[in-house]
């Protein structure tokens, strides 16, 4: 296991441990974020096993992806107070889960479903932008660096936009990989480390006090 991969697992395990320890103090919105972290850890460890035994890797991802994105969207569904943003978040959640269910039912792909994940990312980023709009409408006294809602939203936007770019430039990426140029992949892994460490910090902050809801 490489250093960034080890750190990635460490950050993820830290987030999950915090989620269990602080579960009772988390408000319902952030409990979905904790669930998303738990899904990720289960899926990552389970998928490593599957990979080890050469089992059906893509099908497991197809199960995990809608659950993961669904949980991330559900955070916003719970926290956004106004009717229209909530309705849009609800529609987004339903679309992601429905698409995931349909795909799982007739799953015959040989490789990771990139177009499908791109759709989930777009829905999530759109709802995160609604979250930013909500913050501008209802600012509070808290510093942004202590505001779990902002940190979570910023982390989602940066990480998932980067992932989107990665998926979009996959042909170019494959060309790079084939040329033994791994820096782009390594950058993504380091970004994952920061992302999951930040989400763990968000869980910690959200369990301390009331914030943007």
């Amino acid at each position, binding site marked *: 296991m490489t250093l960034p991969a080890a750190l990635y697992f460490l950050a993820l395990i830290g987030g999950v441990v915090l989620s269990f320890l602080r579960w009772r103090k988390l408000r319902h919105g952030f409990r979905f974020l904790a669930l998303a972290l738990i899904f990720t850890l289960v899926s990552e460890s389970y998928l490593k096993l599957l990979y080890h035994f050469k089992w059906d890797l893509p099908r497991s991802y197809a199960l995990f992806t809608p659950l993961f994105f669904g949980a991330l969207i559900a955070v916003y569904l719970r926290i956004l107070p106004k009717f229209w943003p909530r309705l849009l978040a609800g529609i987004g959640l339903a679309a992601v889960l429905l698409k995931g269910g349909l795909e799982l039912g007739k799953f015959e792909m040989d490789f990771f479903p990139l177009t499908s994940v791109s759709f989930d990312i777009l829905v999530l980023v759109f709802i995160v932008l609604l979250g*930013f709009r909500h*913050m*501008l409408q209802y*600012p*509070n*006294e808290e510093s*942004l660096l202590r505001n779990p809602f*902002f940190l979570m939203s*910023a982390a989602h*936007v*940066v990480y998932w*936009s*980067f992932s*989107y*770019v*990665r998926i*979009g*430039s996959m*042909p*170019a*990426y494959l*060309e*790079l990989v084939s040329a033994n140029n791994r820096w782009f992949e390594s950058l993504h892994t380091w970004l994952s480390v920061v992302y999951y460490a930040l989400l763990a910090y968000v869980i910690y902050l959200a369990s301390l006090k009331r914030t943007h809801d």
Partner: protein
Amino acid sequence: MTELTETGFFGGTLLLSLLALFLVLFVGKYRRRQMEHREEKRILEQKLREAGYESQVEIIEKTLEDLAQEIHDNVCQRLTLANMYLRQAKAEEPPLREESIELIEQAIFDLRNLSKVLSGNYVLEHGILLALEKEVQRLGMVNGLSVDFTINGEHHLLEASAEVIVFRCAQEVISNVIKHAKASELCIHWASGMKALDLRICDNGCGFRLSDAEGKGLGISNIRKRIALLGGICTFQSEAGNTCVSIHIPYQAASKSS
């Protein structure tokens, strides 16, 4: 790099740059909104505080009103009746009877005066100057203070509620002089200028330290707040033998506030 690779990376770089720009703009905008929010909150809190003081003043006014009514309608009537009975009664000791009558008459007179100065209506009906004069008379008689009340300039009418507030503040200052200053002389100077009213209340008592007095419940901060509510300022200067409280109220500010 092939053309496809270059296009992919160009697009990706552009998207990520836009994203970075978006986050920077968001943080800037959010900071501005935070500042606006803070300002709105401060104004709201100030309004709430002012509303609180106003209602506090109203409650005090109502209580004093009820008290004045009670003294006038109940106590004074009973004393008057007792006075009449005593006059009609055939007492065995005429000097004692005369003395009782005199005492009761004095009590009725004092109660009537007290009732007048307690009631805000007296200020509303007769104006602040007459009410102050009445108060000064009463104090001089009751406490043996030598009171000097001077009026300069033509009286510029304040809003009715503003007059009641100024009167209550003056009353509180005078009451502090009687209770704590051990003064023998009290000087009240009322000056109505073209643009503002200046009221100075000075005494030759033992004086006080402002920092000590604010914690003793002398109502100094209340007086300041009430005057500030009218858009004026109240200053306290004190040393042994010479203490002065000055109230300055611009007419324009007072009419806006009340």
